[in-house]
């Protein structure tokens, strides 16, 4: 898997400090940004209640062309829909719990 935008920026900063920064490295940031804007991710969250602050009881993240499944609920990145919204711009579908 290639570098993320953040990783490329960090590599450019390091190269700048060492005096080896190239025009191609900077242009690569633009390429990554353009590609990123075309790629869509999908985050499903099931919450216990309909409030966006309600606890998450189920999740599924499809990103960069594949599912990312944490091993257990204790490893889930978000405790609520609100937490997820605060972190990154992804598509969110909130599903209330079953009756």
């Amino acid at each position, binding site marked *: 898997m290639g570098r993320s935008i953040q990783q490329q920026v960090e590599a450019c900063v390091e190269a700048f400090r060492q005096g080896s920064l190239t025009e191609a490295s900077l242009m690569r940031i633009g390429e990554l940004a353009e590609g990123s804007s075309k790629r869509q991710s999908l985050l*499903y969250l*099931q919450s*216990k209640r309909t409030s966006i602050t309600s*606890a*998450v*009881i*189920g*999740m*599924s993240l499809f990103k960069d062309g594949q*599912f990312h*499944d*944490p091993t257990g*609920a204790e490893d*889930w990145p978000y405790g609520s829909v609100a937490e997820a919204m605060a972190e990154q711009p992804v598509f969110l579908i909130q599903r209330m*719990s*079953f*009756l």
Partner: protein
Amino acid sequence: MREMRTHDCEATLTDSEVMDFCREGYLVLEAVVPEEINKRTCEFLLQNERTEQLLEEDWFVDNVILNAQAAGAVRSLLGSNFKLTMPFIFNHLAQEPMEPQAWHRDGSSHYGPELDSLQVFYYPQDTPVELGPTEVLPGSHFLFGGFSHMDHYRNFKGVVSTAAPAGSIFLTVYPVWHRRGKATSAGRRNLLKYWYTRTVAPQRDWVTEPGLELAHAYHRTDFNIDHRETHRAMDDTAEMFYWLCGEHEKCRAWSNNLPVYYYESSESCLQCGHEAAARKARG
């Protein structure tokens, strides 16, 4: 091929264990089949493509299908002379690392308090999480979910893995949500699946606990099910317990449609001290 037959034996589950089963929708009996039978079963499955031929083997029927601990639990839940659904037995074989199966409940599932059958799984070999044992969502046997609307679910809070040593048998309510877990290593995972059905009307003829009121099925505080509204989970679980006791008509108050939990208890529950009558009097 053996014909369908019935079996009877002593019931082994207690009131509390039956209530637990009503709430969770499954029961795991770890390592109840002797090791020599597990090995023999694995060898048989390696050499025979027709799994149902196992049912012609007395050593298999006597030690697995009629395993004393499993049969005692089945007798508790389905009553006397329960039926073995021969010749139906299937091996859900997995051998390679693979992604988890989609969550599902099996076809023709119905939802309600009636428990007229049990779906059973048997692992003849050690089945650690690396081999992708079945995962179960406790309490999901009361969740109505159309199969085609369940495909986007992947990770639920509260999921239980049935990873277990060889010789483990687990019983489930048929519509419980389940899937094959993610397998991260190669290895032969046999999972034999078969069924039992009821032949008699339900009655409370398992190991009863002295002084236990039926309404205690409503009083329990361990309904920690995230995926449902708590009181719906309580009501459904209690209703299934009442149904199994042959007392289904008593699970709703006579004067209205509320669960008896709210109204019709004359004294404190001996099991937990719950005082429905006193609460009613206080208004």
